């Protein structure tokens, strides 16, 4: 038996969430007394995973896996799962990994569970804690089936350096036939994405107009943060839809979430409340966000934010 981590990489480098998945995988493999296998695709840098506990590293190179598609990746991973007698697959919570998890489970008749926040409390039966009801509750869930697939919630486990055996092995595969081809990828360059950010600076209707976002961007720049916005702001076209966070927008699970001029409607909070520390800045002391936040400032954003920027600049 063994534990497998699908280690997502982009242009030969790993994101924090990939290292977190490997760290989780290592702890689980140790707990089960088995080896940790890491699988990368078309990545020349996979040896790095040794420092986080990889015992065996397979880098799969093939033409049809240059871009991620869930069918090709599932087919290739299944080959490793069968050859290496894998019992548990660990994924991060990235868009691609969550996309892969459910399909892989269907394809292999395995069982998949997402939003996992801790190591399993028991291996046999396999019981693991996950968040549900948009973080308003947790569930201890028993997972049946021979192959178990887990995606871990971002920032829930942490990254730990631990040396593995790190043997790099070749895994020969044939080209997988597919009629699904990625034709274009458009990415905003330079800025931190909401999914990968440690800090998210988010603003709402309290900012009064799109022209006032300069200070939000400046603050985010100083903190190395991603910018986000509330639903009304994206609906009015002040900010792009891709910045909308909340129940129907993007989920946020950052270390620090700063909400400026956002009242904190329940649909907004549902999308952001797995963030660790929440700060609210709002002129209305009755805004519901104050009940959800850890730190609050009652004040006018147009006075508080420039002051905050000034203080941060003074520290640098």
């Amino acid at each position, binding site marked *: 038996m063994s534990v497998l981590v699908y280690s997502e990489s982009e242009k030969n480098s790993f994101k924090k969430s990939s290292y977190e998945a490997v760290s989780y995988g290592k702890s689980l493999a140790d707990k089960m007394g088995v080896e940790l296998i890491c699988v990368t695709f078309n990545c020349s840098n996979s040896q790095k995973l040794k420092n986080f506990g990889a015992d065996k590293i397979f880098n799969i190179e093939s033409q049809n896996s240059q871009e991620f598609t*869930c069918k090709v990746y599932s087919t290739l991973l299944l080959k490793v799962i069968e050859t290496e007698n894998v019992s548990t697959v660990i994924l991060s919570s990235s868009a691609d990994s969550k996309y892969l998890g459910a399909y892989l489970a269907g394809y292999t008749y395995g069982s998949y569970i997402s939003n996992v926040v801790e190591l399993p409390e028991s291996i046999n039966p396999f019981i693991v804690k996950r968040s549900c009801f948009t973080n308003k509750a*947790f569930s201890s869930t028993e997972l049946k089936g021979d192959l178990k697939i887990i995606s871990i919630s971002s920032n829930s486990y942490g990254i730990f350096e631990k040396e593995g055996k790190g043997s790099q092995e070749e895994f020969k595969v044939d080209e997988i036939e597919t009629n699904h081809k990625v034709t274009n990828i458009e990415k905003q360059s330079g800025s931190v994405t909401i999914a990968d950010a440690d800090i998210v600076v988010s603003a709402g209707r309290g900012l009064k107009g799109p022209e006032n976002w300069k200070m939000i961007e400046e603050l985010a720049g100083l903190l190395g943060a991603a910018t986000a916005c509330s639903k009304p702001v994206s609906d009015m076209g002040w900010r792009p839809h891709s910045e909308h966070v909340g129940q129907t927008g993007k989920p946020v699970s950052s270390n620090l979430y700063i909400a400026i001029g956002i009242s904190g409607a329940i649909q907004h909070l549902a999308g952001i409340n797995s963030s660790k520390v929440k700060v609210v800045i709002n002129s209305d002391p009755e805004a519901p966000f104050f009940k959800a936040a850890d730190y609050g400032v009652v004040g006018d954003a147009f006075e508080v934010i420039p002051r905050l920027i000034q203080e941060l600049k003074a520290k640098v």
Partner: protein
Amino acid sequence: MKILVCISNVPDTTSKINFTDSDSKFDKNGVQFIINPNDEFGLTKAVWMKESNNASVTALTVGDISSEAILRKCLAIGADNAIRIDCEALDAYSVAKEIEAHCNEINYDVIICGRESIDYNGGLVPGLLAGYLDYNFITNCVSLDINSDDVKCSREISGGIETSECKLPIVIGAQKGLVEESDLIIPNMRGIMMARQKPLEVIESKDFSNQAVDKKFFKPEEKGEVKLINADEIDKLIDLLENEAKVL
């Protein structure tokens, strides 16, 4: 073209979340159920495709008789017919297996689910279904354009949008962007009256076993009171974030 839209019956966002049966089941008492928001984006897109692709639209849910109200709403929004597979939706696996069994009898070209439900948040059913049926699969789908059996679609990825092409049949995980919130159809009186005439078929469950069992639900620890910082002493906020919360 035949489109199946899978609908999940979920508690309204503002519902109080409580549990019953020694914390092993969600307490439905006094809870208002709605169409899962992500499913509703998908349903609206499907209704548009009735015209653009000459499609027929079937709305399906797996659940007991209490879930028929939302199916009637789907019919009022514009679905042509509705199907309820009669059983308690135990977990995503049994639900996906029930839907798969139905799809093996009636070959749909496009199956649309929401990317995830707002209650259990598993994001499982569309992916499982695509895997079981061995169909192409796109989740977090924000655009869909079908021409005979050629599909052009895009999905949200970390920090951007990816566009791809494939062939039917396909399973879609819908989300906002596929249609906008302002596009959602509010049924009018005529739609509601017509919905009463449309067929709602009840199919017997095949009783698949479940693969994930919620042993126990629990709520997060009560959060402490918010710490208020005077707007004139903003340096204190930075200090607290740095030294107390340790997030800077």
